[in-house]
Each structure stands twice: as C-alpha cells, then as structure tokens.
C-alpha cells in the first residue's frame, strides 16, 4: 500500500509525524499521527523538591 509521510509536522510545539496510507485508487485508506519524542518528566520529577518543580515543569513546553 502506498504511503505518504509528513515528517516532521510543522508550525506547532513538539514533535510529530503523520503516516498516510493510500489504497489502490490513490485514496486515503487510513492515517496515523505518531509522536516520536518522550522526555519522561513524569519520572524524573520524582525526588525533586516540590519548591523546585515550578522551575522544572515549565520546560515541558516553552512555547
């Protein structure tokens, strides 16, 4: 099945790619949005002092 990749998706904050699968007639059969990025704030914020978190979590998204 033919595939169109939009990689990276642009004009937004963050990382993403879109895979579009085309059927034999060239029409869209299905499309998938994938996020190829993970930093792990949920994990690495553990153990940090609570008063430091307002200086750490703004870096989830700086836009």
């Amino acid at each position, binding site marked *: 099945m033919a595939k169109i990749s939009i990689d990276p998706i642009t004009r937004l904050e963050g990382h993403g790619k879109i*895979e579009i699968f085309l059927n034999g007639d060239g029409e869209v059969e299905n499309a998938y949005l994938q996020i*190829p990025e993970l930093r792990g704030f949920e994990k690495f914020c553990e153990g940090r002092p609570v008063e430091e978190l307002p200086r750490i979590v703004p870096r989830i998204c700086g836009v």
Partner: protein
Amino acid sequence: MAKPKLALYWSAACGGCDVAILDTNEKILDIANLFDIVFWPIAVDFKYHHIRAIEDKSIDLCLFNGAIRSTEQEEIAKLFREKSKVMVAFGACACFGGIPALANFTSRDEILQTVYLEAPSNSNEQKTVPLLRTKVAEGELELPELFDTVLTLEQVVPVEYFVPGCPPPVDLILKLVDLFASGKMPPVGAMIASDKTCCDECDRIKEEKKITRFYRPHEIITDPKKCLLDQGIICCGPATRGGCGMRCVKANMPCRGCFGPPPGVVDQGTKLVSSIASIFQGDGTEAINKMVEEIVDPAGTFYRFGMADSMLKRKRLQKS
C-alpha cells in the same frame, strides 16, 4: 550574492529556545532579511526530505537546540552536521543536556513504566507502550528508540560554537547573529557568553561567607539586596558561567546553573560541592551530617541542567 542559509532544529527540547529567537522582537525581521531559512519546524514547513536532498555543507549556520535522547534525534543531528558548515549547540539542553538530562537519574524502562503504565492520570487499560515497530492493517509504523542516557549535542557530532542558557537570552542571540554576519566569529569551541561566573556578575551585597545552616524557601524571608548564598539559600552562581543577565537572581530566585560550568571548571556539580564545603561553618561529623540533610536533592540541584555533560553522566543502571 545569495543569502547565507540558516537551519534551526529542536531535538529533546521544549520549544523555549525557538521562542527565545522570536523574543528578539523586531530584530527577527533583520534575521529573516539576513538569512535564507531552510529549516525551522516551529515556523516554516520544510521536511526532513528537503534537508536530505541538499548538498553537504550547503547550510551556513545551524542552530541546534535540544538534547539527544533517541535514535531519530541522533540521526537528525548527524544529518544537520553533514549539511552544515557551522553547527551551534543552542541552549542548555544541546550544550549540557538541560532539564531532559534529569532522566539520567533514571532509565528508559523506568520512564516508560511510569509514563505509560503507572502515572495516576493515565487511562491505559490495554497497557499500551510505544514499540519500535507496530503492525497495522495497512502496513507497518515505526518509532525511534529511546536511549537510556540523554546526551549533549557534542557527544554525538562535532560542534563549532555553544550558546548556553535556558533559554539563551536575546542579547546573546543577537550577538551571535552579529558576529556571524560580520564574519567575526570567535575561535572554534567558543561559548558565546561571559567568561566570568554568575557570582562575579551578581550585584547583590556579598559578605565573607559563613553559613551555619541552609534554608528551604518556606523557612526564611530573604533580603533581596544580599547574596542568597550568604543567607543560606543554595545558589549555583559560584559554579555557573555568567552572561545570563542574572534573570533568576533579579527575581529573587537562586541560580540553578543553566549556563553550565565557568571556564576552567570541568564538572559543575563537583565545583558547587567544593564551594559549599568551603563556606560552611560547622565542626564535627554531627554538624556536617545536619548540613548535608538540609540540602534536599543535591544531585538534582547541582546538576539541574548539566547531568549529561557532567563526569557522572548518569546514575548507574541497575542490572536486571
């Protein structure tokens, strides 16, 4: 004459470095006039295949922000290195690992476990976790592989210049652009920042430091004119490069080291331990133990932005 080509990329980052470039306000128009922007995901629509198609070394300046923590990010860093004459590690993440390198206190498996399976806000009854390859009815989907250890840009590709900061301040961004535009770039390897420490540039009143205890913010009301460290607040200024404009300290917040170590210092955290040890006034094991307990999360504080660049690099991985 053709304009020099500029590429901007974000790797493991938050987009704050890109916004810092937009924070140049009307000067962004000068940057747009000066350069032909060939890649900038936040603002323009070029794709990776456009970059793969151009000749090697045809990008004059690449400002690369973000740390490297996946196979895709490593591949894109190598792609931009191949295509760029001058590669700049832009911002604390690219220079030192930044906040994403706090992940070096944990591991890929622990992160995936917490993020996808344990986080209380999750609704993931099927226990889905990201896979490198996923078969779907129409074909196969691929995701990059996460590394256990977050890396700096220079640990992956050679880098000509470094602009530190989380994010880099506007005056340093404009300085970089001016230096490049006027052909006056410093010797390769230069940090576009100050050669002094934050402490040297801080105008708070400093006395001879004699610390008898350390405080957390809720335990003390600080004097905004006096050195925070003098008042028993952990401040990373003695082991941090200056040039930041003292943005945190002016807001009555202690430095957390986003400009990395000053010249001549290899390991920022060790330097801070040394600084703190030399100003602490207390005799005997009991006093020292009490002081150590007053510093909550020393590793996560002293290496807040610099874990990937440190001599430690990461917490030892548990063998399974």
